[in-house]
């Protein structure tokens, strides 16, 4: 038996489904693929899959991964990729299979690319609002915890680094935020304040690009 990590992109129609639904969709695709995979041995046996880090509904992802357990240790990696892709919906595309190097718990940071647009306002306007906000001393947002209580968070101190550009496609924000099981900051918290600051409706297109460990190694 051997654990392998399948790397895939999440895009297209699959961008609009939640993590739970991705889990179900990938499980079914693997079920159909007839790749010899290990099932859990509990009372309700199920196919073993384990995701590195959930991705929110609406986000694209270019560096997503799921761990599966092969029964046949020599099963070819390219066969996994081609079978995964022929049984998963368009928008979920596997591109690499590796042996897991790190545990998902090692993930500490995530890099996002966010494109902000608006229907009735220019990109320059959005840029100004976003820029002022990102340059301010504190960015306070309310975050609902798992226990249902609301607490105030200063986003500013959570932003590891960012670049903000105004392009033809919209305002491009590239940002690194804490991610993982210990501390996780969802970039939509930030885009929500940007929208509040703008005072008009904005459209955001968010892609998770890369995941890093505590000492800035790429998660593998």
């Amino acid at each position, binding site marked *: 038996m051997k654990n392998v990590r399948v790397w895939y992109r999440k895009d*297209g129609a699959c961008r609009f489904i939640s993590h739970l639904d991705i889990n179900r969709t990938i499980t079914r695709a693997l079920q159909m693929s007839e790749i010899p995979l290990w099932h859990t041995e509990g009372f309700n046996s199920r196919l073993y899959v384990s995701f590195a880090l959930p991705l929110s509904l609406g986000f694209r992802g270019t560096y997503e991964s799921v761990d599966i357990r092969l029964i046949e240790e020599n099963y070819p990696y390219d066969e996994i990729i081609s079978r995964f892709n022929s049984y998963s919906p368009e928008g979920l595309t596997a591109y690499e299979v590796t042996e897991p190097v790190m545990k998902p718990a090692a993930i500490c940071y995530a890099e996002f690319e966010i494109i902000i647009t608006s229907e009735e306002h220019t990109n320059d306007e959005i840029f100004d609002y976003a820029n002022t906000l990102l340059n301010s001393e504190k960015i306070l947002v309310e975050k609902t915890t798992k226990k249902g209580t609301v607490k105030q968070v200063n986003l500013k101190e959570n932003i590891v680094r960012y670049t903000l550009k105004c392009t033809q496609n919209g305002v491009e924000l590239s940002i690194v935020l804490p991610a993982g099981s210990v501390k996780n900051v969802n970039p939509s918290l930030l885009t929500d304040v940007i929208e509040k600051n703008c005072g008009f409706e904005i*459209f955001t297109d968010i892609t998770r690009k890369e995941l890093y460990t505590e000492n800035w190694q790429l998660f593998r």
Partner: protein
Amino acid sequence: MINKRIEPYLLKVQKPGRYVGGEINSVYKNKDEIDVRFAFCFPDTYEIGMSHLGMKILYSQFNSFPYIWCERVFAPWLDMEKIMIEKDIPLWGLESGDPITDFDFIGFTLQYELSFTNILQMLKLAKIPLRSCDRKGLTQIVVAGGPCACNPEPIADFFDMFFIGEGEEVDLEVIELFRKCRDEGKTREEFLQLCSQIEGVYVPSLYDVEYFDDGTVKSVTPKNNAPKIIHKRIIRDMDNVFYPERFVVPMIEIVHDRVVQEIFRGCIRGCRFCQAGFLNRPVREKSPDTIDKQCHTLCKYTGYDEISLSSLSSSDYTKIRELLEQLTKWSVDENVSLSLPSMRVDGFDEEILSKLKTVRKSGLTFAPEAGTQRMRNVINKNVTEEELIQTCTIAFKGGWTAVKLYFMIGLPTETYDDVLGIGTLAQQVVDCYYKNENRQKGKQVKVTISTSSFIPKPFTPFQWEPQDSIEETHNKQMALKKHITSRKIVYNYHEAHVSYLEGVFARGDRKLCKVIEEAVNRGIHFDGWDSCFNLEKWLEVIRDCGLDPDFYVRRRRGFDEVLPWDHIDYGVTKKFLIQECEQAYKNTTTPNCREKCSACGAAKYGRGVCFEKRKSMV
């Protein structure tokens, strides 16, 4: 293909996965090679519509023809609908993302009366004229089928045609005729007239309805050569009828997210309240081999690990043991679990039970329907108290600790004794759990009882009966609630208001078309959803249209009255229904189709249970 105009707004609505398509096994075609575009519309949300077996069958069947492209369309939820109206984005097909406005066929499935408003709302969102008389040319042919097509009169003005009975054959005949008529340059009117000559097609515009002063129907007169009576279509050979090899596998969770395998159509029982039992006569079974093969194929192509064997009464399948034997040969190894919904109280044994829990233990639900033996005799639900207790004993011995029981209140001749009897019966089930020595120690039993309100439906022996008033239903529910003292019994009941409105449409006539149109104009739809349903608003619309809802709901019809659906034939004769109604009044039961033929009329189709050898004949 995601509709490009809607894409930017998808993150502004709940569950955007409803609107994007792209699922495994959904069908994409090249528009240039397509001759007929068909929008298969389900007048409710994605999660509900995607659970519907009929849509899965017809979607696959249509798309098996290279020149037909059938796409799925669901009712957008209120948040999405608001955006569509604001941004002027017409309703689109999930596959192509194209507006369905100019599709050749717009087909609806009529599963429940409360979805009628959603049909009109969807047509509006698609920018298609609501009334059939306002649609011109050989395009936008609006059609419908499904159980509620048995009395389509309340929506007759909006449809070009209805398919009566089972759709697999008749739909295709109409599509072929459409292609021919278009090639020959025929008009819409000529096409519809030709359609009316196909058996099972009802073109409502070809029938004039006259009324008496009291509002009852005087006559229904066909014109332009349309048949006087429209006969339903049925599939005679269940082993060779089309069945999909693939289901579209949804990416978001839907209501019934599993392989659904039909095992037979119809029902031998003849419960007198049950419309499906009469509409789908006679019983026609699929062979275990066919079912086994189809199940295996579906699991392979969908990745599902659960199969539901579907029918009106699963334990009446004659080869149930053989079938389960065959299925478990591979299902256990492949981690696939089986479930058998619609089990009868008297068709249950340890062997079946052991097969069902080979992989996963599912819930157990039974429907005694009424609380006393007298009441069960009236409705012809031939199940005894002893049988129920025996069945529950088996279930409890098998390790189950929860059962659900379904009942109806408001049945004809019902007294308060009958209503309270439901609580007494539930208590007996609780007692039976504690009598069982092998019960799981330390576990409590839970008996959930649900009551729905009886609604008299067309083509049943109770089609002439008055329905309980809202107040009466409410009183009965409260009386039963008070009668239940055990905390091990959970009592759920349906809102009486909803059943009242459903009662208006179930036995409605064409005068209601204007009511439904007006309701939709006033923003009423999604009536099947508690959060949207508002009876007060509805009553206002009905009054403003000059009609009285009690005329449809509370009135006892005479056996000699012309009923709005009398020109439609489902095989069961009116004479038989009258006879059954009279038997009900005498608390007398009628044997099921396998015990004895009662000459309902369905034997004319020349197939099914009517021609099986009965034990009494051997």
